[in-house]
Structure formats: structure tokens, C-alpha cells
């Protein structure tokens, strides 16, 4: 590993990061070609499949996986479960990056990208997408401000106190907006009622999207912290992780129960085992992404790092599968036609992730993300010292 120092900023170069840089560079070229030539050359999108990999993965899945930010904020700053404080900053950073990538992905996917600001002026308020658009924009801004509190520890210190004072307000707004748009992303599909398979179209879609984004937050934190502990020698205590996983496991049980109730109330529960393509995809999504993770969390494996890592991977995969199913499997019968993402669409999706990882590494190495304990906690510690 080589470290470069430029104006006090640290840049570490490792073989993996060189790979990531290369992928990012290639995808930037692909993006430029896409911007210049439209969709025909780069993507396999067509009239039967107007939404493809970029919307389903980069946007829908991206927002869900970045849910770690608001679910931790809810647990730490609203419920004041202080023992989870050490992960709050890490979760904020990855969530912010997640949202920035989502915005980038959305930007790529809109045909009239120079017109992206239109909905700020021309209010199509009857559209769910309008709500999603506004909420995501506002929430990203709020996360930037929250992150500003961290940045101003190092540069522009004079703004630090102002930001610190506004934090309580920011944190609450920062939970309201994600709750809204996580569920709105599900409601986007309410209008496609006649085009989707009833396994996935449900009047409860908003709730399903919201709940899954909440529980996948903890799952992503389990994965991230395992990777981060390897890369940055930062270990989140096992206690914190398994506690978090339990909260999310509880939510998963509710989710599963609601899903079964939903299918049963619409009399389509028996269809789940009829062996059709849709049924198999649904079973895969539920078994891999919900049932097995629940078993792991509430068994002995839920108290080991390895178990939690596997739990994290499975639950996140489940959510990825779910969002893909909503966009692809559910619509396959109605849309007909054919769509397989092109190699370039994959390249750009991977490139976005690679860019995200690089920025994440840079931030973690240059700002106080992992070594952070709360102000309250420090005080607690002090008072205990005195009383002891």
C-alpha cells in the first residue's frame, strides 16, 4: 500500500483500488457515450421494457440499501439507544454516498437530462414520482448538511457550531423524508395494477418497500462493518451488531407475516407453490432473503461475526431480488418482448459502485468516522469515573 499526501489529504493506493479506479474510468467513458448518443447504442431498453437495470438496480435497490442511514438515525437519535452510536457516522457516510449514486443513476437514465430540474418548476403533484423526486432531493441535501458537521471538524470550523446546533432538527427531518420516499418507491407501482403479477402488486406495496428498507439497513451495516474491519482495522463491537440485527430480525418477522397475510387475503397463497416462474422467484426472494436470515439472527449464529455477515449478505440479496422481481418478473407476462441488460449497462452499474467505494475509503481515511463516540457518552463516562 502506498500513501500519497496532497495538502494534508491522504490517498491510499492498493491493487484493489487501482482496479476500482479502472472500472470507474471505463464506466465514465460509457456514460459519456450514453449522453452523446442516447440509449440505443449503450442499452438494450426498448418499448416493451422502458425501465431496465439502471432503474431497478441503481435507483430502486440503491435507495433501499442506503436505508441504513435513516434506520440507524431512528435507532440512535430518536430512540436514543446510545450503544449503537459508534456506527451512526459510518451509516451516515454510506447512506449519503448511496443517495448520491442513486441521483447519478437517475440522471443517466432520463432522456432529457438537461431538463432534470423541470419537476421543481412544473409540479406534477398527482404523480408518486413527484413525491419521490422531491423527497430524495431534500433528503440528500439534509445528509450533505449532516455530513457537513463531520467535515467542519476538519475544514471550515467556523460553521461547525451552527451545524451542530441545527443537528437535532436535521436528524428528525432526516427520518421523515426517507420514510416517505422509501414507501413512495413502492407506490410508484400501484398505478401499474393491471400490468403486474399479483404476487408483487399489492395495495400494501408502500408498506412492504418501507419495511424492507428498514431491515436491510442493519443487514448492510453487518456487511459493511465486516468489510471495513478488514480494510480499516475498525471493529464494531459484536454486541452492537447482533443487537442491531435483532431489531432488524424483528422487523423481518413482521414483514413475513404481513406478506403471508397479504397473499392469503387476496386468495393467491396457494399459487405460491404451483411451480410457475413467478412462484419460484417469489419463493427464492422470501426464503433466501427473509426466512433464512430470520433463523440466523435468532439462533446461535446470530451471536457470531460470521453468522451476522452471512445474515447481512442474504438479507441484502433478498431485497435486491425483491426489487428486481417487482420491475422484471412481475411485468414479464404483460410486457412480452425481451430485455437483457447490455454489457455496458452492467459496466455502468458496477462503475457507480466502484466509484462509491473509492470515495468511501477516502472519507474514512480522512475524517473522523469510526473513532467517533457521542457527546452524551463521553459525559456518561466522565460521570461514572467520578462516582467510581
Amino acid at each position, binding site marked *: 500500500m502506498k500513501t500519497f499526501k496532497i495538502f494534508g489529504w491522504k490517498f491510499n493506493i492498493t491493487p484493489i483500488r487501482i482496479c476500482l479506479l479502472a472500472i470507474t474510468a471505463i464506466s465514465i467513458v460509457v456514460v459519456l457515450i450514453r449522453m452523446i448518443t*442516447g440509449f440505443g447504442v449503450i442499452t438494450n431498453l426498448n418499448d416493451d421494457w422502458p425501465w431496465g437495470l439502471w432503474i431497478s438496480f441503481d435507483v430502486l435497490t440503491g435507495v433501499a440499501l442506503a436505508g441504513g442511514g435513516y434506520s440507524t438515525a431512528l435507532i440512535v437519535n430518536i430512540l436514543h439507544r446510545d450503544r449503537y452510536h459508534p456506527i451512526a457516522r459510518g451509516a451516515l457516510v454510506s447512506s449519503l454516498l448511496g443517495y448520491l449514486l442513486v441521483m447519478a443513476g437517475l440522471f443517466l437514465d432520463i*432522456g432529457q437530462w438537461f431538463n432534470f430540474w423541470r419537476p421543481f418548476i412544473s409540479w406534477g403533484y398527482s404523480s408518486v414520482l413527484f413525491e419521490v423526486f422531491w423527497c430524495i432531493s431534500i433528503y440528500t441535501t439534509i445528509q450533505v448538511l449532516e455530513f457537513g458537521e463531520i467535515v467542519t471538524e476538519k475544514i471550515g470550523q467556523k460553521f461547525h457550531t451552527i451545524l451542530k446546533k441545527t443537528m437535532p432538527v436535521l436528524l428528525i427531518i432526516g427520518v421523515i423524508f426517507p420514510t416517505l420516499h422509501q414507501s413512495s418507491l413502492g407506490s410508484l407501482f400501484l398505478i401499474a395494477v393491471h400490468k403486474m403479477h399479483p404476487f408483487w402488486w399489492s395495495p400494501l406495496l408502500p408498506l412492504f418497500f418501507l419495511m424492507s428498507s428498514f431491515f436491510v439497513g442493519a443487514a448492510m451495516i453487518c456487511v459493511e462493518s465486516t468489510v471495513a474491519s478488514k480494510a480499516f482495522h475498525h471493529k464494531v463491537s459484536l454486541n452492537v451488531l447482533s443487537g442491531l440485527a435483532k431489531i432488524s430480525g424483528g422487523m423481518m418477522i413482521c414483514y413475513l407475516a404481513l406478506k403471508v397475510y397479504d397473499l392469503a387475503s387476496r386468495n393467491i397463497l396457494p399459487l405460491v407453490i404451483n411451480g410457475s416462474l413467478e412462484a419460484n422467484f417469489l419463493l427464492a426472494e422470501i426464503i433466501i432473503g427473509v426466512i433464512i436470515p430470520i433463523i440466523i439472527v435468532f439462533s446461535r449464529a446470530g451471536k457470531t461475526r460470521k453468522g451476522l455477515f452471512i445474515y447481512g449478505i442474504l438479507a441484502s440479496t433478498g431485497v435486491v431480488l425483491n426489487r428486481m422481481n417487482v420491475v422484471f418478473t412481475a411485468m414479464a407476462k404483460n410486457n412480452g418482448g425481451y430485455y437483457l441488460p447490455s454489457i455496458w449497462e452492467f459496466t455502468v452499474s458496477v462503475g457507480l459502485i466502484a466509484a462509491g467505494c473509492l470515495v468511501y475509503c477516502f472519507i474514512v481515511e480522512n475524517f473522523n468516522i469510526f473513532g467517533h463516540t457521542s457527546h452524551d457518552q463521553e459525559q456518561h463516562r466522565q460521570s461514572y469515573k467520578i462516582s467510581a
Partner: protein
Amino acid sequence: MKVILIAKAVLVDITKCIGCGSCSVACKLWNDLEFDDSRPTVGVEAQLNDVNWTAVQRHDVQSKDSPQALWRFVKQQCLHCLEPACASACFSKALQRNDSGAVVYYPDLCVGCRYCMIACPFNIPKYEWKKTFPLVTKCQMCSTKTASGEAPACVSVCPTMALKYGERSALLKEARQLVNTNHLYIKEIYGEYEVGGTSWLYISDVPFEQLGFKTDVGTKPLPSYTHNFLKYTPFLAIGWGMFLTGLSFYTKRRNKITSQKQADDDNKETTSRKSESTEETNNENL
């Protein structure tokens, strides 16, 4: 969105269509669309796309009365729903239903998100996939032409009068009378109630599902599905915000009390003088 009474409509009589394709040519000429032989507008292969705003599809049907082969032509284009899903889905108001009932696309406002394509139950809006700055395309019901009282281009050129333009209520009345008195027709008007009603109405002698019509779309207007969700959002947001604020204060206070209690418990074990002083420090610190 309320239904406007003077809404105009087109009545398509499938029994009269001979599949000549004049309407599709007129449409291309009026709207300045490219002619492309590889993407026909008439026949079995005919399909809507960015240069075919209308297509005359040939359907071979099997009749149970006669063993003879039978075929029908169905002119496809936007149905101009009374409560259009596409317009309610557009987040920048690039699709709007105007006073005469046409659902019109305003390219300047379009962002290119293609949510309208997802929302339309009939898969009508198409996209210019080959262009650098692609737009959505669909039949505009010749809104600029009808504004001056004329019929849409396709209607005015139809040689067999299979298409008829007029007030929706009047056309409906006429159609209803026809299907009820003439035993040739099936007793149904497609578009009368589908997704809350459409401005293009069809009558036929062959059941609609055999002609590629979507017959499972229900009669409930699609925008109501999202409206039922969206109308609660502001209240949910405010209520949720207040709840969170309250919760935040509550848990903070609870933490304070529990930690104080803990401190108190600890103190009991130490001497009284010592505990007094620690309590003070505790209070200050907390």
C-alpha cells in the same frame, strides 16, 4: 380530475374497417413522422412505435359459426382516457388532458423518465430510443387540428367511415343504439367504462379479447390508486414528524432518568458525604 362534458371522442366501427391504412398515412403526414418500410403500420406485424402513432393491426379470428377464415382490422392509437394514468404519473406535467378530452404531450416539459410508459395500462406511449435526446411519442388526437373544429387527420381520410368524430355522449348514444338493435354486433362498447372510460370507443362483431384488446383493466380509474396513497402523505409526514420529535424527547429523558438512577444506586453503597458531592457532579454533567 373531473370529466368534462363537452369531451370529444372517436367511434371506431371495426366491422367497417377494410385495413387500407389511409389513416396511418394521414397521421404520418399530419404529424410529420418518418415512413419506414421495416416498421409497417398495417398488417399482422403492425405495431405502435415512435414513428407509428397509429397502427392498423390485422387479427385472424376463428368464428364458431362458419369454418371460413375470418379476419378483422383494429386501429390502435392512444385511447385518450377520461382519467389518464399517463398524465397522473407524469411528474412534470408533460402530459395533460385538455378541455376537449385529448391527452396531449408537451415535449418541452418532459424529463424523459418514462414513468408514463409504465403507468399506461395499454402500453401506448413509445420512446425515441435511437435519438440523443429522446422524447415520448403518442397520438395527440390531432389537438391542434381539432382546436379549429376539424376532425382528426385519420378520421377525415377514412374512406369507409369506420371512424367517426364527435361529442362523446352523442357517439355513445349512437353506438349503444346500434349494438342493441343490430344483432351483428356484440353488445358491448369498448372504452365506455374501461379504466373509467376512454375517448376512443370501439364496437365490433367479434369479441374484443380475440382482437387483442385488453379486457381485464377494470372500470376503476387508475389515478385513484395513487391518489388514495398520496392524499394521506402530508398528514402522515406531519404526524410522523411530531411523533418522532416526541419520541426523541421521551427517550432522551428516559435515558437520563435511568442513568441517574443507576448513579444513585451506586452512590448508596458509598459514604453519605461522598455521595453528596458525586450527586452534584452528576447533575452538572448530565
